[in-house]
């Protein structure tokens, strides 16, 4: 074929993947906004179900915020591979000559940018709603900043495994929630430590280590799972 073509490398392909994710987020903004709204609404259910007294609320705040963030991230994953699977784009992704590892990273990172990051930024407001003392805001945000990408990567493994099942229902959550307990424990631990004036650098370091581990291994698991799913 004689058309002029500009041969592109891996980076350009990744950028294209990232751009596609962001475009999709812009085109259907619900996928970005809904997890956030879910986060806010679910958190405000707790005072309604439990009780509204400030001491009580601030005692449950670290746990409730982290558990709800975990749920919001997990449930937002549902949109990660689903439509690609259904319309056959996933097959094309697997058949593409570019390395799968990076393509997956680009997809997950794009997803985190549009769902995880806003959640991190919104978290102090929810701390306010649950009467969390102000000195815990920064640790909460730092923990979420390190924790949500890990949660996204773990969730992507679950999603990749279940995307081929038509009626997967809550299977994703069931598979993934147990795996993400360590992140929850250390994440909520950071906030509790800050509340009690304990050092929290160690806990943050553990969260960082988990992120590094997930970054290096999860894409492999995701790739393998996707291959099984399209089979």
């Amino acid at each position, binding site marked *: 074929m004689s058309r002029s073509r500009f041969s592109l490398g891996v980076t350009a392909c990744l950028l294209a993947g990232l751009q596609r994710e962001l475009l999709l987020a812009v085109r259907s903004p619900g996928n970005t906004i809904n997890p956030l*709204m879910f986060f*806010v609404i679910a958190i405000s259910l707790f005072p309604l179900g439990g009780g509204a007294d400030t001491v009580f*609320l601030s005692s449950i705040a670290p746990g409730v915020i982290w558990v709800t963030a975990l749920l919001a991230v997990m449930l937002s994953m549902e949109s990660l591979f689903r439509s690609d699977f259904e319309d056959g784009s996933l097959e094309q992704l697997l058949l593409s000559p570019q390395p799968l590892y990076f393509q997956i990273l680009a997809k997950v990172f794009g997803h985190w940018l549009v769902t995880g990051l806003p959640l991190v930024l919104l978290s102090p407001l929810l701390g306010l*709603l649950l009467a969390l003392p102000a000195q815990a805001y920064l640790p909460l945000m730092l923990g979420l900043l390190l924790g949500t990408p890990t949660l996204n990567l773990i969730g992507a493994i679950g999603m990749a495994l279940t995307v081929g099942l038509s009626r997967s229902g809550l299977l994703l959550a069931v598979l993934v929630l147990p795996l993400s307990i360590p992140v929850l424990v250390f994440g909520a631990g950071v906030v509790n430590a800050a509340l009690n004036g304990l050092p929290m650098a160690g806990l943050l370091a553990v969260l960082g280590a988990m992120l590094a581990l997930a970054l290096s291994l999860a894409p492999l698991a995701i790739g393998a799972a996707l291959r099984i799913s399209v089979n």
Partner: protein
Amino acid sequence: MWQWFYKLGSPKYFYDMTSGLLPWLYTITFFLLIVGVVWGLMFAPPDYQMGDNYRIIYIHVPAASLALGAYAMMAAMAAMHLIWKIKMADIVAKVIAPVGGMFCAVALFTGSFWGKPTWGTYWIWDARITSTLILLFIYMGVAALRNAYDSTSAGAKAAAVLTLVGVVNLPIIRYSVDWWNTLHQSASNLSLRAVGANPPEIWIPAFFMGFALLGLFLIAIILRARNEILVREKRTLWVQDLLQNEIEQSREPSHHA
């Protein structure tokens, strides 16, 4: 009456009518706003308990009541759209959702900034506050649902159904939240006080501000509705004529220059 009602249902009639109405509305609202703001901020005496903080009431209370009223209006429009398929009703319902949500947010923000000096905290789970928050969620839900649809007509109908479901549910939510708060008796008993208890120097500007905010609300609705009409009817003759005229008018000065 019915005839007028049907006429109002036609986007063109609405557009023409509001073209005449808007200048009046601008003037009246501006007047009310000036009087309300000047009186409220400069002449009304400070409250014996809250000092000057209470002046936030002049925004807070009208915003809160408008947020509620807007929902009722949106629901009426939704019903009209579903039952009689009146296009105009849907346009108005569509533009109310974000405006009503805005007023709701304003009530929440002014309320919490008022809460800091009065209650010492930005947020408490008071019954009224909580139900305002839920109302905001419902507004956002209606808007989100409409946006989620690619097809305008399907999105309109879906949003209308949700709005009507909300109508059934809002009183129930209100009632349940009241009940919930009485049972739990929040930490400090901080019910919002009634307007009637205050001297007239305080509530007369509130009266002005109330109508001024109503004016702002109507202006916002009408402007947005006119925009929406132009977008939806952009292929009809009258809109094209109108745009043609606008273009010519904007060109004219440059011709003379």
